[in-house]
């Protein structure tokens, strides 16, 4: 019943697993980014896969689940911490069916499944967002918060 959404084929690179990455999105370090199938990355999104942990071997910096939608102008950066004198980036793990609104800055550590994040949000570092949570538009989530499952957060400081 829903009308199909049309998009221009030239704008998106489509992978064999169905991910659609916009050509105008900035993907840094794509070898460290895992996309589950059928994820859409909109134009002008910035995904920093180059900020990886220091250490040998292959590191996964950002992993998204299936059917995710990263809005336009979104910035996704892994969180970092100075711990015992060492500065390190931590991997960011995002679940399935996550919709991130436009112009949102996401630095969370973990995002669960079925999460809806609104526009112009700022998700602080090391935030843990559990399943089915919802973050309203223009929300500022302070670092280290835990958003429990099925919660709705709004406002700043959220």
């Amino acid at each position, binding site marked *: 019943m829903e009308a*199909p959404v049309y998009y221009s084929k030239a704008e998106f690179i489509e992978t064999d697993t169905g991910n659609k990455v916009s050509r105008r999105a900035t993907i840094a370090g794509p070898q460290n980014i895992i996309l589950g199938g059928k994820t859409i990355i909109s134009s002008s999104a910035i995904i920093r896969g180059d900020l990886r942990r220091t250490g040998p071997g292959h590191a996964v910096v950002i992993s998204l689940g299936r059917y995710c939608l990263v809005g336009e102008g979104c910035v996704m950066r892994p969180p970092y911490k100075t711990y015992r004198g060492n500065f390190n980036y931590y991997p960011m793990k995002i679940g399935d069916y996550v919709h991130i609104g436009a112009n949102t800055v996401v630095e969370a550590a973990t995002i669960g499944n079925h999460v809806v994040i609104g526009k112009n949000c700022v998700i602080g570092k090391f935030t843990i967002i559990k399943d089915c949570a919802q973050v309203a538009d223009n929300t500022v989530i302070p670092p280290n918060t835990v958003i429990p499952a099925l919660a709705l957060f709004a406002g700043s400081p959220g």
Partner: protein
Amino acid sequence: SAVLSFCPSHFKTRTTAATCIYSSRSLSLRTYPYMAPTIHYYCPCQSGELLQTPPPPHMASSSASFHPLHSLFFCEECDAVRCNRCVAVEVSGYYCPNCLFEVPSASVRAEKNRCARNCFSCPICRSTLQVVASDPPDGGDGRPSASLSNVGEPPFFLYCNHCRWDSAEVGITFEKPTGLAGVFFLSHTNSRLTAHLIAQLQKFEDSAPESLEFERLKEHFEPFLRTASLSSSSHIPSTSSHHLHTSSATAAASAALARDVPGVGKYNPLARSRVGRDRTANKDEMPEYKSRMEIGVLGQLGSEGDDSDVDALRRMENVEEIASLEQRWGNSWTTSLRTSDLKPLRIPLHSKVSKRCPTCRHILIKPEQKAQSVRYKIKLVAANYLPAITVGLPHASGTDTARRPQTKATGVSDDRNAGILTAGKSYPFHLALTNPLYDPIQVRLSVQRMHVTAVTDGTAPEKARRTPFAVSLPTSPFPVAAFAEAWEYDDDDDMFGLEDDDLGLDVGRSRDRDGKGKIKAVGVLEKRANVTVVGGEVVIGKEARGHVKFNMLVSYTYRSDDPLPSEDGAGTPSRTVVKSPEVKTFTFYTVVDLGPILPREEKTDPDI
């Protein structure tokens, strides 16, 4: 969605113009948003008597009885729809929203509904506080000191990441980084603190004056309640009708209350009159209660009375020094006005609820015990029993399919006529029914006739309200296929429209097109997987106003696999008896809202 600006005096639609060209009225605040057509389901809990017909939808109060399908439950025993208003809610568990630790119900009361671990919330901005260690002492030459322990150096304090407040400002520090709430929360056996100890420990929670006062009150009433309960306890029958304490959590809570405040026995309405009579005899013997501190001595409470407050206000530099109302009103007694006196708060616990049917007490929703799991042990939602219906107006999206496909950002100007129902015209609409059951169903739709009384608006009676619009739906039953997994369906991508050759749409109606060759709008349009799309038509009268809303009765029959009640448990070897399939019918009401009616314009503007 299309947003049209709408001049209230001329009823003209404009999209980008900021002023109406006729009246020069600013249109920036008048928007006429396109509301997609919706459908809601009716729960009969508000109707009271057995009538069970929904109220007419044009009345504003009727929206309380209609709910979207995803918020409804279905009781299998009563075979009825239940909504959030009529279910009985009870707590099934508590958890801390910060550390996601499930708190057992017994310790919930002991910890006063707050987290017992290191979870605090900043008094300024209400975000969670982080336990940080003090910086290690500097070696004097700028280099980091050698003793970098894993957890850091004591003393530890709380730090807010958002507003950079820390608890050292109010003087609260801890020696070890775990178990902080235990330090905060003194056991209430230490109620008899003397004055100088109170002054030292003033910052801690349980020695707060209000909790000490409460302890003293409890001690004062304790002997009288005990005698009252002893005299009335002989009349309390054994634990029989405790229908209120259906879960272990509430039973544990009431037992804890009874233990804590002696005399409050288990709730029993039968003994109420007797207890009242006994209490009146005791009331004369109760001595007067003297509170722990004088009311006028507000200095101990921290607000220090009027004069010192005024002096402090005179000396203040900026307004942030005064604690805002939102930061202060959670306290039971008045506290200091200054922001610098605000203490961190332990984070209150959240609860997970389970819901029961009000009549038969069957559990409808029971969440899992884990705090962060979103699954349910029992999930009797209406979406698993009732067909899901979605409404669409084909002229809203029909123009898009005909055009060239555009980029993902749908243009606002293309939807200028999308979905707006203009008075005086007739529109087709689509209903898509999705069958959630594993058996095919036969659905019958009918429009409920409603009696619209002519409401006088005060100025001119609207006679046209008697027939604002007429809705025609397919009247004969049509089947909807059963739900099956996605791979079991044949790859039948039917064209959106009318198939008149096969698929067995023999519902007994004549499906030939009329003489003009116009495609029939009313009837079954498409069958795909477990979805059937039927079309209806609505004719809007010329003087109609408001929304096109009508109640629709949906009844569907399905073959249920319930065993026949002939198995009496007598061990009859009746396995060879062929169970005749039982056909059950379920009926429910819905309200379909197709959107607002746009009053008829004199001419359509071509420049929109």
